[in-house]
């Protein structure tokens, strides 16, 4: 299939093999579990927010190449962003994966995250690419010190 390389870009394979910020954060003040029931992906996102900004973010768990790479690149992208900025990036990222037409401008504005544009051709994999982001949202919505929230992409 010609677009297989579009899906499994070098950057994605690299982050899947060597995920960044892949660790449990014992002193996180927000965390949530994400579960993709279809394929068994399970990950937990950890977050520290200071003055409305992402101070530290990490993740841990099991997943396919797409969900792991997406989580890894998400953590790189979010460092230092405000909660509102994070939400905005997610919305544009989601549109990139699901919009029926290619939008080069949108892809450019997403920087490194644009490598996921190829996922659009594989609708069943959109859930893999967005699992970490849905989990992040649940973590942000969670009150500090409450037990981990849980989301599922089913």
């Amino acid at each position, binding site marked *: *299939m010609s677009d*297989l390389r579009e*899906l*499994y870009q070098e950057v994605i*394979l690299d982050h899947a*093999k060597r995920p960044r910020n892949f660790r449990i954060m014992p002193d996180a003040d927000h965390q949530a579990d994400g579960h993709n029931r*279809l*394929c*068994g*992906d*399970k990950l937990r996102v950890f977050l520290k927010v200071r003055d409305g900004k992402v101070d530290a973010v990490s993740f841990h768990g*099991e*997943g*396919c*190449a*797409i969900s792991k790479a997406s989580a890894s690149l998400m953590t790189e992208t979010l460092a230092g962003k405000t909660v509102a900025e994070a939400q905005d990036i997610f919305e544009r990222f989601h549109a990139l994966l699901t919009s029926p037409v290619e939008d080069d401008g949108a892809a450019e504005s997403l920087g490194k995250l644009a490598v996921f544009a190829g996922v659009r051709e*594989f609708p*069943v*994999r959109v859930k*893999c690419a967005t699992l970490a982001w849905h989990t992040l949202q649940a973590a942000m919505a969670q009150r500090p010190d409450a037990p981990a929230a849980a989301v599922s992409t089913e």
Partner: protein
Amino acid sequence: MSMATAKPPAVAGTRPDGARPVFNGEKIRADFPILTTLCHGKRLAYLDNAATSQKPRCVIDAVTRYYQSQNANIHRGVYSLSEEATGAYEAGREAARRFLHARDAREIIFVRGTTEAINLVASAYGQRNIAAGDDIILSAMEHHSNIVPWQLLCERTGAHLRVIPMNDRGELCMDAYEKLFGPRTRFVSVVHVSNSLGTVNPVKEIVRIAHSHGVPVMLDGAQAAWHLPINVQELDCDFYAFSGHKTCGPTGIGVLYGKLNFLEKMPPYQGGGDMIASVTFEKTTYADVPHRFEAGTPNIAGVIGLHAALDYLAAVEGPEMLAHERDLLAYAQQRMAEAPGLRIVGTAADKISVISFVLEHVHPHDIGTILDGEGVAVRTGHHCCQPVMDRLAIPATARASLAFYNNQADVDQLVAGLRRVLEVFA
């Protein structure tokens, strides 16, 4: 690989001595229109037969013919079209009786599939016979559809589930099974052939042991029914279930077999038309078995399609077909072992052609996407058997499941696809 089946691969369709073809695979393939479909421009290698089987032309034609020239409701009209439909529906019951080698056609109940059959038994049998503190025995390799209905029953009644453990090869521990029986054991429900591991369970022995404790047994035959000859009288099981769509038939139709003496004592499962003898607002008397369990207008087209499917299977089934499946399984397992880092999950001594596998460093979901691009359809995930995955400490597997209409070219395409997976993830 320590597979009992890994003898030198015979070429499928020929005798071990290579002499003359005994199973005409190409003729069989021509019966299945979908097998000529292209997938991403490539030849389709359909290896997800454990999820659902493909349909031969005769089944598709039977369903079409019914809607074109026989369609009427059953058991109600006096006009000839309705009588004809009723006759075709009841002939389907007789075909299912023959297929399972049941004694009496009244022991055949039409349901939506295996799932509904199990729910029916858990609900109608469970309601009268299972109470707080009772035990129900299941196995560690059950499909969710043979777990959740019993859990619901436990929630309603206060009964408990006991689980027969399995070893790392995916075989049930029969010693442990025997020890699970106690004075409060009321029911055993076990899968005949596992959909995630391919294990063929020693169900005759499972039934014998349960009966020695006076406990009835239900067998989930969803995977077994089109791979093995089924004789419910010989197995002596009290209930048996299978799905039409996994036996070359349509979706939405399945069969529950139950021994007459059990069915006759069971209350209805659902209420409605067709399951009654007489209705007043004060009291309703129920129809006799099997109609008592078939409320409402049934899946008439489904039964007619299933009838065609069971006739078709009866014509192709036999020692040659079984040998073809066995040879193809051996060939597939041997070829797959060529892929570095590939591990087959489920290596029971007695197994049919379900091959679950994991690849080191590659998640099953990524395997599935890349194989799809190569025209190879496999299932990835937990296969509705999360407890099996937990037991084996893996999140998911990829699964290639073979049918009698598969051939070596399908397996070769799978192996080539696996090579592509390894290239991408090199």
